[in-house]
């Protein structure tokens, strides 16, 4: 990128739509993914992503730059997603959202759609899928921290900034989340699998 993010933010806050579009291009995939993994619905994730960028655009003049833009926008995204989940829970539209099979199939399709994943070992794909579906059984607070740490690859410090938690809390919560997730997964899938050490996905 020829122009630094700082300059882009400055321009966008002054109303430069092009500069903001560059920011959108940079972050839309990450924001959409985080929302999607949290709410498990493509439509909802799109709505959330749209809302996040709208909010970001509106609030940009107030963005002081005392945290990184990425931290800021992921915080907005996490909050919007958690709000969405809370609202959904309150309206108790479980019967409508119930077709879990649909969700799973949609997840599967995404993995298959991804060109790169074809290169991955069958085990990894299988394991990744299993882990993902297990992740859905975790409560939102623990799901978020695993998503940020392992799927997004954030450092503890970044997680602490995004979730507005202390480093100690991040450490202990992540530990707890991993243990919970491990217990949700069938033991045999871990014991025998020779997992290919894959490079971290660029989200």
């Amino acid at each position: 990128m020829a122009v630094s993010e700082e300059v882009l933010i400055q321009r966008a806050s002054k109303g430069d739509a092009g500069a903001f579009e560059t920011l959108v291009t940079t972050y839309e995939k990450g924001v959409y993914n985080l929302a999607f993994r949290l709410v498990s619905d493509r439509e909802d994730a799109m709505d959330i992503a749209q809302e996040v960028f709208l909010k970001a655009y509106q609030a940009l003049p107030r963005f002081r730059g005392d945290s990184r833009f990425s931290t800021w926008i992921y915080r907005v995204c996490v909050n919007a997603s958690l709000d969405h989940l809370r609202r959904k829970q309150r309206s108790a539209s479980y019967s409508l959202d119930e077709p879990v099979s649909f969700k799973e199939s949609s997840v599967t399709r995404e993995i298959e759609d991804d060109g790169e994943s074809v290169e991955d070992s069958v085990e990894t794909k299988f394991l990744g899928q299993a882990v993902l579906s297990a992740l859905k059984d975790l409560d939102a607070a623990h799901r978020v921290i695993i998503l940020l740490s392992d799927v997004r690859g954030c450092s503890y410090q970044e997680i602490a900034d995004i979730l507005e938690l202390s480093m100690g809390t991040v450490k202990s919560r992540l530990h707890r989340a991993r243990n919970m997730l491990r217990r949700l997964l069938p033991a045999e899938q871990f014991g025998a699998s020779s997992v290919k050490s894959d490079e971290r996905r660029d989200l």
Partner: protein
Amino acid sequence: MSCQAFEEMLSAYVDGELFPKDKQTLEEHLSTCGSCQRALFELRSLKIALQSVPAAEPPAELHARIMSGLKPRKQGVFDRLSDRLSRWTYRQWVPAVAAAMVFVIFLSAGSGVWYANKKQGLDLTGRPIANVPPDSGTKEGAIRSDTTKTAPTTGTPGGLGLAAAPQGKGGEAAPGVKDLTGIAPGAISFLDIDRKIIRRAQLALEVGHGSVQRISQEAINLVKANFGYVESSSLAQSDQPSKEITSFYMVARVPQENLDKTIEAMAALGKQTRQDTSAQDITDQYVDLDARLRNKENQEQRLLQIMGQAKSVGELLQVEGELTRVRGDIESMRAQVMRYDKSVAMSALSLTISEEGAIKPPSPWPWHDVWNAFVNAWRTLLIFVAKVTPALILAGIVFTVLALTLRKKRPA
């Protein structure tokens, strides 16, 4: 250190977030502890599995949706309003636009009436814009200071014409009253009587701020210069410090032939906001009164003759009693004639001087004007609608076509 304590460090170790000191201790432990090694392997596998999960490819329309969803930055309420409006379909637009049109028509009709009336010096209800009436100087909290010293006492400061007749011989205070009438009571012949007309005038002036006192003095001087006199006057001032409004009111008497001249001169003192003149023909009453008076005078003469021929004290007393009654009647009739003469000779001129922009008298009902304006606006609206019906029909057709096109563009 127990395995439990080490296990808690494993997660951070996998993430590479462990302090170097702890890392060394943990690695030493791992080389000897099989269960911790297994736990580390599981955690690593888990992390790698999660890292291997490919990013979900966002739907192709996401970017366009985000960009088209952006709105210019606006503040709070307005932002929410425009957000709401953007979600409206023709179902909401049709009644909204219709309502807006009615509102605009209503508003323009109302303001049109108001503007047209203003040009003609009328208010919204079509009445003349009222100026300060003589007694409005005494508002709530106003200090009223009567200065009637310049006038012969009458007791009725607002009184005009006959009601303001001077008591007894008070009329003499006016220089030359008798000379000007030219009619000595009792000496007028029936044919001598010309038209007897009482003229009255009311004048209202607006003057610049702070000059009420000066102008009122000039007005009094004008009255005197025209051989008139001030019957009563009053000065009122508001005690509000912000809007100091003083107003002056007086009733003056000027010779009838000087009335027009005086009004003219007074009108030049300030901005004239009102001038009413009236004339009352009292010829009939005057003639009637004169006839009855002469009748009584004849009776008096006869009674005097009878008294001279009286034969006894009883008769004398009887006639004298009758004579006293008749003379009483004559006196009161002569006083009446004098009053008439004075009213005819000296016209009542009332003058109000107020500061420009003085508070208008409040309407009897606060919503009176609003209601009248409302009624007026509707009346005008009806006329307006009748005139623009062809244009409205055309607009309706255009709008329907537009609404249908919009509906087609928005499936579901």
